[in-house]
C-alpha cells in the first residue's frame, strides 16, 4: 500500500470515528465525511460559485420523473433548483436545450484507459484532463468512471476534485474452484461478526462494570470488519450458479449487501440474490453455453438483467468491452453503454431500470449516489443532452456538463460534428426546431410517458422504415 493511500484510509477512519457509530446506520449517503476530503469542498460550494442554467429541455431526471421544458439551475457545480419559471440570475451561463432531452451523466464501471491511460490507481496524480479518450468518453455521455474501484469524475481541463471517492469496495474471492478459500472466508466473517458482537456487549456492560476488558481485535480481518461495519462493500466476481448461491447465503448470514460482477447465471438463482440484497454488474449480451451435463438451468441468458431486476436485485450494466475501442468495431465498447443497456431491454428489463443501470445503480455501487447518478437538487450538476431517447441507437450526445461546466459540445468538437448537425439558431417557438430527424415528433410530447417502463410497440415515426413507401422520391424531405 502506498503511503498516500494509507494516509487517506486513516483519515477516513478518523472521520468515521468522529461521526460516531449511529451515524453510518442512518446516513443513506454513506457519509460525506468519508468521501476523501470532499466534504469541505461541498460546504464551500453551497454559497458561492458560478451560476449555470440549462433551459427549455425535457429533463429525464433518472428517478422516473420527466419535466418537459424545464430548467435545471446549478451553482458551484451543484444543482440548486429544477422546475419551470425559475428566476435565472443575470450572471448565469445559460445553455438552451430546446428540443433536447436531458439525462444524468452516465457512470461507467470498470472503465479502462479513461481516468488514466496506463492504470495504476493514483488518479489524482495521473489523470490527464486533455486526453482524447476523455473527450470520447464525454461525447459518449460518460461523466464518471470507476477504475480500480475508484470513482473518478471526468473533468476536462482541470484535475482538482477528479477523485470522487477512493476505494469503497473490497474484492473478495469466493469460488467453487477453491473450496478452502470459501471456508476460510466464512471463518473470517464469523470471527469479525463475533468480535463486533463482543465489542457492542462490552460497550453496554462497561457502563456498569469499569474493569471489564475490551475485546481484542487481534486476528480480526480488517477488510471483513469494514464490510460488516458498512464502511466498505464486498465485491465478488462470480458467474456460476453454485458460487452465486454461496455468496447470497454468506451475505444473508452476515447481513451485508454483496456486489456481484458477472453474475452470468444469476437468472437461475435470482430470488436468492434478491433476498441477499445483492447488486449485480451484468453484461447483458455476454454468452456462455449451458453445460450439456447439467439437468438444471445454466449458461447465459439475454433475460438475465430482467429476471434479476424482477427479483429485487439492483442491476448495473457494464459494456462488453470496458476499453475504448479504436479498432473500428463499434457498439460493444464502453462508448456504447446505452446500446448495451438496450440489450437488457431486449431481454425484458424495463427501460427505466435500464437507464438506472447505467446511472444511479453504478453510483450506489461506488458509494457516490449522494452526489452522482440522477438529476436532483443537491447533487452534482452532471448532465448529458441528447437529440432523442438515450436508449435509441441513433441518439447522440449534443452537450455534456460536468460539475456545472459545459465540457463537450458536439457541433464544435472533432469526431461527431459532421453527423446530423443540429439546425442552427431557430426561433425557440418554431415547431421544426423541436426535433432532429429520426426522433420523436412534437405530437408525441403531449403523451405523459415517464421515460417508459413499457417498450413502445408501434413507436410511430421513431424509425425511418416506419413510413409507408411506394418507391416515392419524396422521402428526403425531413433530411437534416
Amino acid at each position, binding site marked *: 500500500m502506498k503511503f498516500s493511500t494509507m494516509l487517506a484510509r486513516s483519515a477516513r477512519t478518523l472521520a468515521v470515528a468522529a461521526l460516531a457509530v449511529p451515524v453510518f446506520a442512518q446516513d443513506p449517503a454513506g457519509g460525506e465525511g468519508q468521501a476523501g476530503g470532499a466534504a469541505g469542498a461541498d460546504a464551500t460550494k453551497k454559497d458561492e460559485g458560478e451560476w449555470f442554467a440549462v433551459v427549455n429541455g425535457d429533463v429525464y431526471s433518472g428517478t422516473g420523473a420527466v419535466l418537459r421544458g424545464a430548467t435545471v439551475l446549478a451553482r458551484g457545480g451543484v444543482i440548486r433548483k429544477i422546475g419551470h419559471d425559475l428566476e435565472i440570475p443575470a450572471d448565469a451561463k445559460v445553455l438552451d436545450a430546446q428540443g433536447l432531452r436531458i439525462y444524468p451523466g452516465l457512470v461507467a464501471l470498470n472503465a479502462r484507459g479513461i481516468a488514466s491511460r496506463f492504470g495504476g490507481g493514483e488518479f489524482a496524480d495521473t489523470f490527464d484532463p486533455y486526453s*482524447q479518450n476523455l473527450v470520447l468518453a464525454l461525447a459518449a455521455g460518460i461523466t464518471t468512471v470507476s477504475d480500480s474501484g475508484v470513482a473518478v469524475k471526468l473533468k476536462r481541463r482541470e484535475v482538482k476534485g477528479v477523485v470522487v471517492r477512493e476505494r469503497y469496495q473490497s474484492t473478495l474471492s469466493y469460488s467453487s474452484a477453491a473450496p478452502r478459500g470459501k471456508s476460510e472466508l466464512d471463518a473470517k466473517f464469523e470471527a469479525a461478526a463475533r468480535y463486533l458482537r463482543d465489542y457492542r456487549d462490552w460497550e453496554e456492560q462497561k457502563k456498569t462494570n469499569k474493569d471489564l476488558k475490551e475485546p481484542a481485535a487481534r486476528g480480526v480481518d480488517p477488510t471483513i470488519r469494514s464490510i460488516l461495519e458498512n464502511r466498505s462493500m464486498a465485491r465478488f466476481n462470480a458467474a456460476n450458479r453454485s458460487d452465486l448461491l454461496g455468496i447470497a447465503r454468506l451475505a444473508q448470514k452476515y447481513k451485508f449487501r454483496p456486489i456481484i460482477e458477472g453474475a452470468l447465471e444469476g437468472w437461475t438463482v435470482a430470488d436468492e440474490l434478491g433476498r441477499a440484497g445483492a447488486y449485480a454488474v451484468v453484461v447483458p*449480451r455476454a*454468452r456462455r*453455453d449451458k453445460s450439456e451435463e447439467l439437468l438444471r438451468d445454466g449458461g447465459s*441468458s*439475454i*433475460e438475465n438483467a430482467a429476471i434479476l431486476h424482477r427479483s429485487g436485485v439492483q442491476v448495473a450494466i457494464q459494456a462488453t468491452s470496458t476499453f475504448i475501442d*479504436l*479498432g*473500428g*468495431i*463499434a*457498439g*460493444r465498447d464502453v462508448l*456504447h453503454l446505452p*446500446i448495451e443497456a*438496450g*440489450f437488457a*431491454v*431486449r*431481454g*425484458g428489463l424495463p*427501460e427505466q431500470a435500464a437507464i438506472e443501470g447505467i446511472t444511479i445503480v453504478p453510483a450506489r455501487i461506488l458509494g457516490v449516489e449522494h452526489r452522482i447518478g440522477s438529476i436532483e437538487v443537491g447533487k452534482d450538476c452532471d448532465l448529458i443532452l441528447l437529440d432523442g431517447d438515450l*436508449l*435509441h*441507437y*441513433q441518439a*447522440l450526445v449534443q452537450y455534456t456538463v460536468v460539475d456545472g461546466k459545459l465540457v463537450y459540445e458536439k457541433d464544435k468538437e*472533432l*469526431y*461527431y460534428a*459532421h*453527423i*446530423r448537425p443540429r439546425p442552427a439558431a431557430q426561433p425557440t417557438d418554431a415547431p421544426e426546431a423541436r426535433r432532429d430527424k*429520426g426522433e420523436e415528433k412534437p405530437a408525441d410530447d403531449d403523451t405523459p410517458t415517464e421515460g417508459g417502463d413499457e*417498450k*413502445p*410497440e*408501434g*413507436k410511430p415515426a*421513431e*424509425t*425511418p*422504415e*416506419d*413510413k*409507408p*413507401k*411506394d*418507391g416515392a422520391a419524396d*422521402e*428526403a424531405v*425531413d*433530411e437534416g
Partner: protein
Amino acid sequence: MQIDRTLRAALTLGALTLAAHAQNALAPRTLTPPDPARSAYLVDDAPPAPGAVGGPGLALMVSKALTVIWNGTQVVDNALILVRDGRIELVAPRGDAGVPAGYVVRDCGALWAMPGMIDLHCHVGGSMDINDMVYVTNPELRVQASVIPDNPNFQRAIASGVTSVLYIPGSGTNSGGQGVLLKTGLPNYEESVIRDPGSLKVAQWGNPERWGFGVGKTWENFHLRDMFQQGRAYAAKWKAFEDGKGPKPEHDPRLDVFRELFSHRTQVSTHTQVAQVVMMTILMIRKEFGIDVYIDHGEWGGYLYAELAKELGVPGIIGPRNVDVARTGPGPWGGANPEKMTAIAGEYQARGMEMVGFNTDSPVIPQEELFLQSAVNVRYGFKNDDAQAVRGHTIVPAKTAGIDKRVGSLEPGKDADIVILSGDPSDPRTSVEMVFIEGRKVYDTARDVRRF
C-alpha cells in the same frame, strides 16, 4: 467370406442391442413428450406444420411488414402474409385480401414482420477447422465437409433473425477455399444448402501475410493474379472442349472451381480492406478477370474506391468494423479521417453506392449481432430514410450473392423465411419473437427457451 458376414451380423446386432439399451435407459428421463411442432421434420409420421411443405396454409397478420422489395414496396402496414408449401403466396394490406379457407391464422398483433436476415461472412457454420494454410492459395478446399447444420451458434443467430449465411473458410491464405450458402435452422445439410460452392473465398490483405514474415501487398497480388490466370486458362480449355473446339483437358481438382467462376455460376467473396487493397479487388478480380465479385469487410479507407466499385458493379458488404475511427499514427492500419468518426457503410453510400450491406465475420462479432452492424452505421451517419438498414441485411446481400430469387424480401414465390419481431430491426431493444424458415417455425419464444 461366411465368417466375415456372420461377424458383421453379430456386430450389427450388438450395436442394435446397445442402442436399445440406451433408449431404455433414457426413456424414463423424458418427462415431457417431444413437442410435435419442433420435431415435425424429424418424425416422419408427424403432420407437416402450417406453412411448411405439405401442410395447410398459414396466414400471418402483423402490424407492419418490411417487404423491402427491390424497386418495389418497402413497407406494408396492417399486413396479411399468406404462406403455403414453404413459399410466400401473398403480402397485402389486410383490407385488400381475405384468408382462404383452410388456412391456419396467426394474428401477431402489434408485431412486425421482415425477411430473414442474410450474413455473407460467417465462420460458425460448423467445426471451426476451416483455415488450412497448405499453399499460398488453396482454391480446392471446401468448408462443405465441416458444416454442422442447426449448430448452437446458428440457434442463437436464428433467435435474432439470421436465416441465411455464407459459411466461408478463414483468411490465413490468399485463397482459403470454397464457401457454402446455407439456411441456418434446418436439420441436415441437404436441406440447408442454398448453393455450393457459395463462393470462392479470397483474402487480399490483413491476415494472409501471416503466411510468411515480411510478406506485403505486392507479393499477395502476384500470387492471386497467378491463381486467377491459371484458373482462367483451365476454364478456357474446358470451355473449348465443351464447344467441340479442343481436346479433353486433364482434370485438375485444384482449379475446378474456376470453371464455375468463369461461367458465372458462382462468385468470389473477398476479404478486402484498406483503400489500395479494395482498389485491387475491383481492378484485378472484377475488371481484369471479369469475375462476379463483392467486397467483404471493406473496412478502414476502402470506401475511397466506392465510386469505382459502383461503376464496375461490385457490391460492398461491410463489417464488422463499422466506424472509420479517429486514429492516426504509423503502421499500415489507419482510417482516412483522423479527426472524424464516420460510418464506413455511410461513406460507401455517400459515394453513390446503393448495394451496401452488412456482415459479422462471426465469431469475431457473434452471429446474432448482425442487426447491430446497421444500427451502429446509422448511428454514425449511414442514411436510413428509405429502409436502407433493413435492405442491407436482406435484399442487398441476397442480390449480392445472387440468391434473390429465393430470399431477401417478402415477395410472392420466395422462400417463407420470415422474422416476427417487436419493432425496428436495428434496435437492440427489439426482440425477435418468431422465425420461420421455408414455412417451418424454427423459433418461437412462446414455445422455446428465449435464446437471444
